[in-house]
């Protein structure tokens, strides 16, 4: 599904160069639930962003579904993300001017799904994350856990091939964290969606098929569970 070779990402800050990624190669199969762990600053987010086509590597190549995606134009990358990827960020990243339901259906209507259909499937996903009662609330009126569940529904609405999640539970208590992870597990199993999730909580391991541990921008350890 995703094959990345020798990914490097160098940030230049004045005279200092930070090697956020320093030669990472990775192979992720369809339907895998992959955990990326490592200390803070080890390059987890950078890797996730590059695999998710949100950032370009300084060096290296990425093939997704047999396509050399790094050669795509920005707008083609955008369309690719819209159709094939779902994203969940640590800080939820909801659009504050849109209600819960509107946030969820935005990727669907951007894909051209007719509004009634988009609303119906958006409603189903909100149901799934147990937020039907809050569909018309704005993000500011929701708790952190609720916002993250809205973000998950949004990430799922286009039925993506790959779900990218960057520390989705970092701001949640353990009950809410479990809800989120159970949901990931379910969709991964039911729909055979690939899930790539960054986490530095040890107990999350029980959900992963495979764990990749980074250290200083390199893979330190890889383990199939």
């Amino acid at each position: 599904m995703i094959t990345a070779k020798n990914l490097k990402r160098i940030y230049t800050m004045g005279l200092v160069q930070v090697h956020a990624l320093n030669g990472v190669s990775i192979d992720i199969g369809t339907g895998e639930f992959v955990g990326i762990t490592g200390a803070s600053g080890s390059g987890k987010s950078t890797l996730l962003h590059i695999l998710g086509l949100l950032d370009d590597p300084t060096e290296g190549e990425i093939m997704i579904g047999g396509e050399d995606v790094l050669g795509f134009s920005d707008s083609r990358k955008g369309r690719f993300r819209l159709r094939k990827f779902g994203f969940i960020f640590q800080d939820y990243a909801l659009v504050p001017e849109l209600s819960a339901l509107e946030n969820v259906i935005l990727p669907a209507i951007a894909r051209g799904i007719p509004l009634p259909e988009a609303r119906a499937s958006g409603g189903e996903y909100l149901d799934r994350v147990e937020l039907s009662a809050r569909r018309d609330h704005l993000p500011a009126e929701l708790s952190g856990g609720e916002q993250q569940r809205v973000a998950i529904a949004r990430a799922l609405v286009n039925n993506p091939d790959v779900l990218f999640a960057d520390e989705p539970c970092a701001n949640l208590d353990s009950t809410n964290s479990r809800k989120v992870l159970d949901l990931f597990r379910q969709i991964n199993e039911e729909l055979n969606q690939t899930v790539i999730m960054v986490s530095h909580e040890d107990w999350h391991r029980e959900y992963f098929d495979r764990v990749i541990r980074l250290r200083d921008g390199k893979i330190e350890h890889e383990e199939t569970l």
Partner: protein
Amino acid sequence: MFENLRVSVFLAARALQRGGRGRVLMNIIVIAFVFTNMIFLPSVISGAVETYNVQTIDFMTSDIVIGPRENERYIEDADTLLGRVNRIPGVVRASARFSMPASIDFKENSVSIEVKAFDPRDEVEVTRIHEYMKDGNYLGSGDRDEILLGVLVTGHEDTSQDFYESLGGAAVGDVVTVRYANGIVREYRIKGIVQTTSYIADYMAFVTADEMDAVLGGAEPNTRATEILIKATDDADLHALKRMILSFGVGEEVKTWEDATSDIVAESVESFNIINNITIIGSLIIAVVVIFILITIKTFTNRKQIGILKAIGIQKSVIINSYVMQVFFICTFGIILGLLLLEGMVLYFTAFPIEFPDGTVTPIVDVGMLIENTLLLYLASAVAGFIPAWRITNEKILDAMRGA
């Protein structure tokens, strides 16, 4: 294409609904004022020009005016010319005028003026002076020892209130002494006083053509004229009519009222147009700056949101369009509000016209100008909204998402 527009509309609508309604309302009001400003002054100036033009036709030149040939003082054989002009299709009536310099004395006051003579039966068909009698009556065709004076000629008893030399408040029935340039001195009873709103028309003195014949004292009635005023039918094309008059072998100077309008007036209309253009450009600059600031602030505070939208896979153009649509919304309602304001102002000033030294002015809103300025405002605002939106959407996704 259609899908993209749909998403832009969706984002724009929610942003307007939930992204600071107060600010949106304030911007609508600013655009309304800008629009009103763009239209109102030009409409007053159009109104002033129109007032002047109507006065010129009604009191000064009628539709077409014939003057003497170059280097000549008189139109010779005016009776024959009059007969000929009166037969041209499209001509309602022609009136010959003969003027002679004179001084008019009343008590200790004296006014130097050209006394104009006409046949009242012709004159009432070509000018509207007779409809503006302040006092007394208009001249009748047989009148011999009577004179018609403009209100500025008779003036006030306290002459310091008069702008020109005046007769110090002479009234209908008073007798004035007229000393003509040819030496003839006559006594006339003031038959009527004219007040037209045009200060040029109100500084005139008229006697009948019969009286002027007597003043000139020839054996035959006078056949000369200093000008011939021609009233055309309402639907007549004045330029075509002028050409026709010339083709009938009239060798004199033939001018439409527009040709006859002095260069000074043409020049002041020109200066007014420059002022109008400056007003419009100034208004547009205000609109551009306001919209630019609005969208710059909006896109800057929405940096993170724009990053999120791009991360999800919403196209840049969709995001930019959503901001341009918000601008269009603000413009549309601003212009509608501006039109209402304008309509209110026009209604007000139609009921209570603006008093100008040379008559009263009602603003005239030109539809062409309205459309042109509306389009200009849209265009300027679209550009002013597009640029900041375009700048922010070009930011890298992750940089934007980290932003506030």
